[in-house]
């Protein structure tokens, strides 16, 4: 089995703070991490490899040179090879352009790595939260897709995917090749060993640039090739006037709250 895992290096959004004076995001000092959902996608691939040792896992990311750190992390927890797609011409790409570039990179990689049986992605990146790149890669490649995957089981050329949906869970059978996006599950990503960390540090990570993707249509990449444009961004304001209730005792506070809610017909 030949699996490609797409990952993104993201700022740890739980560490982001707002500058109270300028009311903007403070980005500096925020650690960069492997997008948590992508780590679950990689873990799902690693589990297939645990049961099928002839499995190869190739990890792919699009981003600046710095994203190689994230790729190295992936190499230490199951990835066999890693590639970075990076070019100034890709800057400003929205999900349609990003998924197009990634699908072209996947076709290019298949020339040397062989055809991928499955493409695993995290369901969404925690910075953009769009959940679009996985399904859009599937569309560019004309592959079937399963989103919100939790666990998988390989049966010949069919992958059984346990997935989440709004009312519970489902098991979907998908004929490979296909694209599966993963959400967080009980199968927590494994930790690296000292040995695997050392090996990942020494590993060579090749970079593909726009010129390497000969078939790419430059009108469909970067800011120009992106149909969606960010008009503005802003920090949500919270400035309701809150009536604070803090009486002598908790009992009095509770009774005062009850009275206010009752008077305003809230209960």
């Amino acid at each position, binding site marked *: 089995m030949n699996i490609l895992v797409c990952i993104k290096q993201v700022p740890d959004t739980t560490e982001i703070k707002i500058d109270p004076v300028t009311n903007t995001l403070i980005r500096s000092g925020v650690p960069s991490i492997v997008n948590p959902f992508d780590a679950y996608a990689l873990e799902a691939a690693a589990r297939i490899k645990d049961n099928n040792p002839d499995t190869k896992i190739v990890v792919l990311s699009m981003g600046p040179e710095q994203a190689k750190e994230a790729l190295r992390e992936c190499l230490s927890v199951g990835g066999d090879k890693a590639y970075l797609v990076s070019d100034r011409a890709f800057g400003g790409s929205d999900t349609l352009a990003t998924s197009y570039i990634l699908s072209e990179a996947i076709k290019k990689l298949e020339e040397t790595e062989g055809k991928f049986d499955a493409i695993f992605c995290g369901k969404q990146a925690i910075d953009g939260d769009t959940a*679009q790149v996985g399904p859009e890669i599937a569309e560019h490649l004309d592959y079937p897709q399963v989103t919100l995957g939790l666990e998988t089981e390989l049966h010949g050329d069919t992958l059984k995917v346990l997935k989440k949906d709004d009312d519970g869970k489902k098991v979907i059978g998908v004929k490979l090749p296909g694209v599966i996006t993963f959400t967080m599950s009980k199968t927590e990503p494994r930790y690296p060993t000292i040995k695997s960390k050392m090996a990942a540090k020494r590993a060579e990570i090749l970079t593909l640039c726009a010129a390497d993707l000969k078939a790419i249509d430059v009108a469909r990449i970067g800011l120009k090739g992106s149909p969606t444009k960010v008009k503005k961004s802003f920090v949500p304001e919270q400035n309701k006037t809150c009536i604070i209730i803090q009486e002598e005792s908790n009992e009095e*506070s509770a009774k005062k709250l009850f009275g206010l809610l009752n008077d305003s017909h809230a209960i």
Partner: protein
Amino acid sequence: MEAKNKDLWVFIETKEDGSAKNVGIELLNPGRHLAEKQGGELVGIVIGDNTGAAVDTVMSHGVDKILVVNGNEYKEYTTDAYVAAFYHLVEKHGPTTILIGATSIGRDMGPRLACRLETGLTADCVSLDIDEESGNVAWTRPAFGGNLMATIMCPDHRPQIGTIRPGVYKKPLEMKKDVVIINEKFSVPAEQIRTEMLEVIKEAAGEMVDLEGAEIIVSGGRGVGGPEGFESVRELAEALGATVGSSRAAVDAGWISESHQVGQTGKTVGPRLYIACGISGAIQHLVGMSGSDVIVAINKDSEAPIFKVADYGVVGNLFEILPILTAEVKKLKG
């Protein structure tokens, strides 16, 4: 693709019995408003099997037209069948705008459809408007875990598509017009559907939580201290006839199941009354509940950010406050 008209479409998700889910019906309300500003018709898109009941429901919520694709292959959602049918409709009729509920189905179908149409899609929007200057839809959505809001436009491609969070537009529009119903014949051969549903695992009845439809929600966070602490939250909820919610911290700690989670990675809610107990108010929680009509926060830390979005803030010990509040409510309802 060029738009052939100024119509705005709303995708009506159907259940397996063919009836309409609320998520599509609630979008007809902002849909009506935007369609009028855009100068086109409001069209409901119904795809499913035995869709009669869904069509009946859609009729009374302000649409001008309903396009129906009916067939056995649409009984359960599959990406391949639904995207093929939806793409066919768009190609044939050429709308300007499409609204889709940001459910697990909407977010599976939306990107695939947008990509096939080579157009832009804005995911998980919490507010919609028409940009006065350009006439484009201005889609507003949270990013960076809710720390930042972004307004996105799709100026040069049609249709412009967005998925919208369930629960943002909770009040359906009751309005009956002369509705044109068009049954579109479109079928997808079985071999083109490349996924197969093998098993459905429903959540146990006790675990089903309807947060989006709740009138009152009582939520617990880290401050409740443990699974036992949720008992007083549950008791108040029961007295009020409310649904129990929670913050992500309480779910991550394993005190309550994920289906109760409110926030950026949980559900977006808009009840009449939201009571947050022991919830500090991380932005990821606030983004999911700040649209509630009346917000009560009970927290021992008077500096907690939750008080910035609350109407009534009680500073004190929730373990003492909740039982008294519950007793008062019982007396009132008794």
